[in-house]
């Protein structure tokens, strides 16, 4: 499903160089649930931005669903983001001027669905995350946990098979965090491919497999990572 091979991404700020990705390779099979775990500044978000086609690596190959992303045009990248990838961000990233329903509808507008179909799918997605009774609420009228569930519904509505979640519980108390994690578990059991980014070991353990990040490099086990 996701094949990343020898990815490099280096930032130069002043005369400091930061290796945000340093020879990072990763294979994620369809329907796999992978956690990416590492301390702050280790390159987790950079990796997710590359996987989500929001950013391009300096070098290396990234094949998504058989397509070499480096060769895609800007419009093709938009299409991949629209149809193949659902994002769940730490800061929720919902639009404040719109209701929960409209937020969930948004990706479907860019898939050029009719209004009727959009509303149907958005309602079904909100139903899946247990928010059918909050459809007309604005994000500011929802709790953090509910906002994150709206964001999950938005990722589900687009029919994407890959869900990328960057610290989805980072801004939540432990109870709503657990709710969100249960939801992600369920999606995993329903066959979604999930890449979950976290710095929390305990949360990482809920995944089928954990990859550890240190200074832009990926390790298969904590011991390997600690040796650094």
């Amino acid at each position, binding site marked *: 499903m996701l094949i990343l091979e020898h990815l490099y991404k280096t930032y130069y700020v002043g005369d400091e160089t930061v290796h945000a990705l340093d020879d990072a390779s990763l294979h994620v099979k369809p329907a796999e649930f992978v956690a990416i775990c590492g301390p702050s500044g280790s390159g987790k978000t950079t990796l997710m*931005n590359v996987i*989500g086609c*929001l*950013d391009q690596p300096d070098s290396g190959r990234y094949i998504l669903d058989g397509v070499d992303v480096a060769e895609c045009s*800007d*419009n093709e990248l*938009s*299409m991949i*983001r*629209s*149809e193949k990838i659902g*994002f769940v961000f730490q800061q929720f*990233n*919902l*639009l404040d*001027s719109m209701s929960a329903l409209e937020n969930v509808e*948004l*990706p479907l*507008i*860019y*898939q*050029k669905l*009719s*209004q009727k179909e959009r509303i149907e799918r958005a309602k079904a997605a909100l139903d899946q995350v247990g928010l059918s009774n909050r459809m007309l609420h604005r994000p500011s009228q929802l709790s953090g946990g509910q906002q994150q569930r709206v964001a999950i519904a*938005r990722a589900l509505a*687009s029919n994407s098979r890959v869900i990328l979640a960057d610290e989805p519980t980072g801004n939540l108390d432990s109870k709503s965090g657990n709710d969100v994690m249960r939801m992600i578990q369920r999606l995993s059991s329903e066959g979604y491919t999930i890449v979950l980014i976290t710095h929390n070991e305990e949360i990482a353990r809920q995944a089928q497999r954990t990859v550890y990040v240190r200074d832009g490099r990926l390790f298969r086990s904590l011991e390997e990572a600690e040796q650094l």
Partner: protein
Amino acid sequence: MTMFFNSLRLAMRSTLANKMRSFLTMLGIIIGVMSVIILVSIAQSTTSSITNAISSMGSDLLTVSVTDEDITLDLDDFMTLADYDGIAGVAPYLTVSSTARSGSTYTSVSAVGVTGDYMEIAGSDLESGRGIVASDLEWRTYTAVIGSGVAGDLFESYDVIGKTFKMSGHTFTVVGLLSESGSSNDSQILIPLTTAQRIADSTAITSAYVQATSTNTVDIAQAQAEYQMLLLTRDEDSYDVYNMSELLDTLDDVMSTLSLMLGGIAAISLLVGGIGIMNIMLVSVAERTREIGIRKAIGARRSHIMMQFLIEACVLSILGGLIGLGLSALGLQIFGMIADMTIAIEWRAAIIALLFCVVIGVAFGSYPAAKASKMTPIEALQRN
């Protein structure tokens, strides 16, 4: 197409969400459109009232006037013009400004002392009653033929034959009503020339209409009239002979230049309005950077973002244009009420102004929209 309507709905919503800011943004456009439409409409309707007055007289008409106050010509002097073979008729006239009163209603009028031929030569038609005739002049009667505007002002009715009014200390009886012409002639009162001379306390006459035998002989008639006036006054600088169609052409030229100038000034204010829109759109793009990032992350293309902001700019400018159109209709009503005339909206100016608004929306919205669409998703997402 659904994309377009979605963007449109979104643009309407963000315009309405920030009513005060949207209004201030549109203000430049509103004022611009208002000034275009109001100025051009007033210029146009003033011109058409004057040109109507002149062209109703016909293009075979000349006006002869004495410009030197020391030269006094009388009726007989002017009638010598009629002896030329290129000239079909002469209608000397004498205008006295005065106030007419009926009951407690006053109105200021220009009373024109005329001969029996005046109405035919000047091209005025009777609605009812009779005109001024030779015996009126002979007896210096206090009879009057009034324009429809005067009838309305004085009697509030068109049934005026036999009614009387006071003017310059005399009681005049209305014997005829002129048909409505839509020109300044509607506020005229025609009285016998001899009566006007008595009111003015002078036999001096300064102007006359001269009718050529046909429209083709106007030039000959003009030469003959100029020759005879030279004989009468012995001073070529003391009189003028105008050809009506020449006058009309000059007037047209002046007025279209004026309209163009007014339109140009107003167009500049529209342009300034456009810059205001660009300014606010740039602010809006900066404010909504994160929104742009989110939209891109969930699948928006560059063209979608571009369209969203472009349509928003167009909505602002077109809405501003429509509000400006509405306000200028209102403004013209009020102006018409104050100036006591009806001024129609000049639709060509209105349409051009609105089209201009679309152009401004696209032109000044393009840069902010392009700026928004060129942002990379992470760049847009990382900014808070």
